[in-house]
């Protein structure tokens, strides 16, 4: 009996250590965000005090009003939203069409084309940026939504994820659809996509996040506010408030907040989608 109690205590201690380690780890993950929030509410003097203070003496909500006035945030927000929504819609659409072709059709060259698609996943997109920049310049697409979105559609990743799901749709449904006078086009939209709506919504969410956060390519092909996304707007904003940390952090919070809310709402879907799909780019 004594040894059992000892074992139970050891077990409880082990549990406590586990939680403690995880909380310390989570703290390291959260410190940058907490510091950002705290600093965004400090006064200019507080934000650069030595040693740094943990919390503001009085929360300066006015920092947000001031930061909001410096840059055209609504325009950046609108641009980001347009790029994320249009980019995601187009990418999901062309991925659905291709995945469908590889699922139910057989045609000469299927194997070779499939291999080429597979190869696209191994090519680092970083290599393509130089020539794509040249192409976009020659097409006159610099500083336009076309220039930001269209080159990023060259992405074979989601096609494979979708195909995996499409393959699981039972073929008996195809015969049934055929009897009902459904062609291949109707079968895709009336049966295949609704049956795989979990997979479709997962890739839509993942692609939305990566469009929302993309900044290397948009930075290269934009040069005016008219098409700038939030991250690049933030870059511009930081130049104009240069050394004022508290304002920089208010701006950074403005930029991060929409995605954090999006994450909290869709967290289960996002986490399971990433876990299933592995990685992108």
């Amino acid at each position: 009996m004594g040894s059992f109690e000892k074992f139970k205590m050891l077990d409880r201690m082990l549990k406590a250590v586990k939680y403690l380690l995880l909380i310390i780890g989570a703290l390291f993950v959260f410190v940058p965000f907490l510091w950002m929030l705290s600093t965004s509410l400090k006064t200019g003097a507080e934000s650069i005090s030595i040693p740094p203070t943990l919390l503001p003496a009085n929360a300066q909500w006015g920092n947000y009003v001031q930061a909001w006035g410096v840059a055209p945030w609504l325009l950046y927000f609108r641009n980001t939203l347009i790029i994320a929504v249009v980019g995601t819609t187009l990418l999901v659409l062309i991925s659905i069409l291709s995945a469908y072709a590889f699922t139910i059709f057989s045609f000469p060259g299927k194997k070779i084309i499939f291999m080429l698609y597979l190869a696209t996943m191994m090519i680092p997109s970083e290599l393509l940026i130089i020539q794509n920049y040249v192409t976009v310049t020659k097409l006159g697409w610099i500083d336009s939504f076309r220039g930001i979105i269209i080159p990023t559609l060259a992405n074979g990743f989601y096609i494979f994820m979708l195909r995996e799901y499409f393959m699981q749709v039972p073929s008996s449904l195809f015969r049934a659809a055929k009897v009902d006078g459904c062609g291949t086009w109707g079968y895709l939209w009336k049966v295949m996509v609704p049956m795989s709506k979990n997979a479709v919504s997962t890739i839509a969410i993942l692609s939305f996040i990566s469009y929302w956060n993309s900044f290397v390519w948009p930075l290269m092909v934009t040069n005016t506010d008219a098409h700038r996304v939030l991250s690049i707007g933030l870059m511009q904003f930081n130049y104009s408030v240069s050394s004022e940390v508290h304002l920089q952090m208010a701006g950074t919070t403005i930029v991060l907040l929409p995605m954090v809310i999006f994450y909290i709402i869709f967290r289960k879907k996002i986490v399971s989608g990433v876990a299933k799909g592995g990685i992108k780019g």
Partner: protein
Amino acid sequence: MLSKLKQKRSIKGKRSKVVIENGQISVRSPKAYLYLLPAVIVLVAFLFYPLIKILRMGFFERYVYITSTGTGFGLSSIKHVLADPVYQLALKNTCFIVFIGVPITVGLALLIAILINSLTKGKGFFQCAYFLPYVTSIYAVGIVFKWLFHSDYGYINLFIKIFGADAVHWLTDPKYVVLSVTLFTIWNGLALKVILFLAGLQKIDKQYYQAAKVDGTGRLRVFSKITMPLLSPTIWMVTMISVIHAFKTYSEIVALYGSDAAGPGNSAITVIFYIYNMFFTKGQVHYAAAAALIFLIIVIGLTAIQKIISKRFVYYV
């Protein structure tokens, strides 16, 4: 089983022929090409074409992209890049991030995932908390880190002072810049790896653990004889993804230093930063392309090594 596999059935349509093979429909119709067309257009225009173009560009001594003309076809640009001290520094820095940063990230992520997986309560909470950095804009987070690294006002120096260390100029002292970038990549990369490890752990068949429980096997033995071997494909996959990702380190540097220079005197330059810097800042397309060519060879080499090693050593169920 075999007779079922070979079973074929045909349905005659108006134009196309439908065959059901191994339980999978296959429609013989040229319409398939129409479905593929949109993806093929963008893939050819913005993936295969630029790839071929860049591979060719790298072999020119001088190249003008506006007119798409080059002079002096040969290996001179590649030789120039390989001999460039800046490129060698970029390679050295990148290797630091890969060989120091990746093992730390993968190790930490594995530890965190195993801890989270062993919890009975709060699994979902910790999973979501650790994954947050994945969805936040790296540029925005980079600005925060810039200040955390600040030598006077930053929390990181405040933290190391507790242990009696002197203030470090993380982002301005060339001795520390690569370390700072690596720390940032560790923080940033942890999220994805934790989630991938958790997914791998959850895929392990519970039966093995039940069997071990019946046999009264100790915790450590269960871990070393069941968890680790069955997780090894995941560990391998995550490591390879991380290595390739770390070789591409670029956005972390732009987030910390902007896109004009990688820190003081380009001291934090990486291979990809070198390529873009050559092109956008210095306007030397041929060197940028040559550096890209070398990079592609590295990536292909890594992928080949991955294939060979995973065939030999990784235990698959």
